[in-house]
């Protein structure tokens, strides 16, 4: 049995007014249509996002009701939310592959949405420190989806989800970080003054990050959507990383 990855290539335009869940839902709807899958057939949807519509609950709960459900009874599939950046897709892919291979689920959708430029909305560059300026110039927006399913007849097939590798390396924690808005480590959440002073913004120490990474730094960083965007562009040996460093690689062929 092979777990195959169906990456329906599609593109949507989105604007500043669109919500992250709206962007993800539009893409997933397109992907499902191109794959010929009804939303009702999904057993599990895995979302990877650092930019949800609400602080709580997760993006997935806002996204699911926006799919084009045909069944008048709202289908209640499982919905897992993972919070990783560039490695998120690899965590989702590894879990999605294994959960199908184990026979627990048959059809799994992975949705990655990161609208990272929104961190800097309404913030003047004159307010930013060097690390925040570097992050602002590098972080971008992206959203992508893929579908994972079970291939009943794998004889002679070489494609599918290949080796997926994930690991963490905490040496990178100071090179690429965002201390807020969810910081608990000081015993109190951030106040409006903290936000006014930009303490919620991502920071990047580019030279340090480059030294730590085993592969070349991408020109722009789309968070969890980055590796999937690479996949849609035809790249089949994928690499992603997030703060931590959270590292992921995968080899696959797209159907």
């Amino acid at each position, binding site marked *: 049995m092979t777990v195959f990855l169906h990456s329906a290539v599609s593109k949507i335009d989105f604007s500043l007014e669109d*919500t*992250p869940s709206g962007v993800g839902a539009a893409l997933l709807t397109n992907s499902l249509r191109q794959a010929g899958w009804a939303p009702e057939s999904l057993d599990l949807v895995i979302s990877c996002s*650092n*930019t*949800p519509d*609400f*602080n*709580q*609950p*997760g993006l*997935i*709960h*806002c996204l*699911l*009701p926006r799919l084009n459900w045909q069944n008048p009874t*709202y289908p*209640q*599939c*499982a*919905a*897992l*939310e*993972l*919070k*990783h950046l560039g490695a998120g897709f690899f965590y989702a892919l*590894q*879990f999605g592959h*294994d*959960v199908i*291979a*184990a026979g*627990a689920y048959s059809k799994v959708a992975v949705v990655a949405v990161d609208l990272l430029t*929104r961190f800097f*909305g*309404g*913030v003047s560059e004159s307010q930013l420190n060097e690390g925040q300026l570097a992050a602002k110039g590098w972080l971008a927006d992206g959203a992508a989806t893929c579908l994972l399913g079970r291939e009943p007849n794998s004889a002679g097939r070489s494609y599918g989800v290949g080796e997926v590798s994930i*690991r*963490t390396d*905490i040496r*990178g*924690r100071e090179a690429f*970080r*965002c*201390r*807020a*808005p*969810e*910081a*608990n*480590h000081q*015993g*109190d*959440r951030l106040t*409006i003054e903290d936000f*006014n002073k930009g303490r*919620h913004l991502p920071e990047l120490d580019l030279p340090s990050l480059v030294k730590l990474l085993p592969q070349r730094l991408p020109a722009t960083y789309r968070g969890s959507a980055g590796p999937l965007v690479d996949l849609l562009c035809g790249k089949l040996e994928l690499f992603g990383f*997030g*703060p*931590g460093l*959270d590292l992921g690689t995968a080899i696959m062929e797209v159907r």
Partner: protein
Amino acid sequence: MARLSGAGHFVPDGVVSNEDLAEIMETSNEWVVQRSGIRSRHWVRHILGKSDILGNVDLAERASRQALKRAEILPSQIGAIVYATITPDYEWPGSGSLLAERINPGIPAYEVRNHCTGFLYGLLVARTMVDSSRFEHVLLVGVEILSTGLDVSTRGRNTAVLFADGAGAVVVSQSAEPGIYDLILETDGRFADKLGVEAPSFARPIPLKADDFEGEAPAVFPRMEGKLVFKHASEKMPEMVQRVLKKSGFTANDLRWIVPHQANQRIIDMLGSALGCPGKVYSNIERFGNTTAATIPICLSEIQTQGKLDPGDLLCLVSFGAGFAWGAAVLRW
């Protein structure tokens, strides 16, 4: 096959009673107990001079080390961490990778963000990793520091009295005998705005404005349509227990314990009544409050500590929370 092989928990030293809260907001012990069953909770937050200043990972590490000790597993034997929380220490990096550094550097750490059902979703991930033989032992942690995000004025009393801080952990290991029989997880996002925290978020650009911290219902504090949550939780939790038992071929009579998410004692009581076995439904909400992803593993650890859990005992775990999302699992200890 995957099986739970040990549980641990840790809560901060700071015990905040209902009487303590009554000193900083308009409430009373009777009011809180009647509505929730909670008499005290553990907070890291500074209140009346009680404080620990511990972070999310600090709690998780203590619970994890206890779980590892009870499972007789060395930290170096852990192949992956599954870390369920909605209150990490930082936005980036995730708390799971920080715990990995303390437990077994370099291993992958799944960062699960599924609120009250986080432990059950984490159980699905951990079981799958073990069943696939990818890892022999996976550390599953549910941990929250909710106290620092609460509105502790009278305006926020409906939610501030409920939520608390704590961590629970279990080791999920490969086993020759069946351990986790079945797991059902479902969600209904039509109720996403009925229980949660609106901001900071990305439906609109941050930074936050002063209005988000002020007014009748500030966006940065939890909001909850209590009656709606109660209604759905009271219906879904017994239904899920019955469904997962049927799916796995057991009945309530076969269970030693039903371990529900600890959100409200009245919901827990209704669960016991609906299933006809109130004595099997474990509750510690009176002393711990609602610690979201940590409630179920804290209960498991307590039951083990009390010597009320023997190898071979059959358990049913069940949860309901924000999303709305709900789920249940049947497993043998």
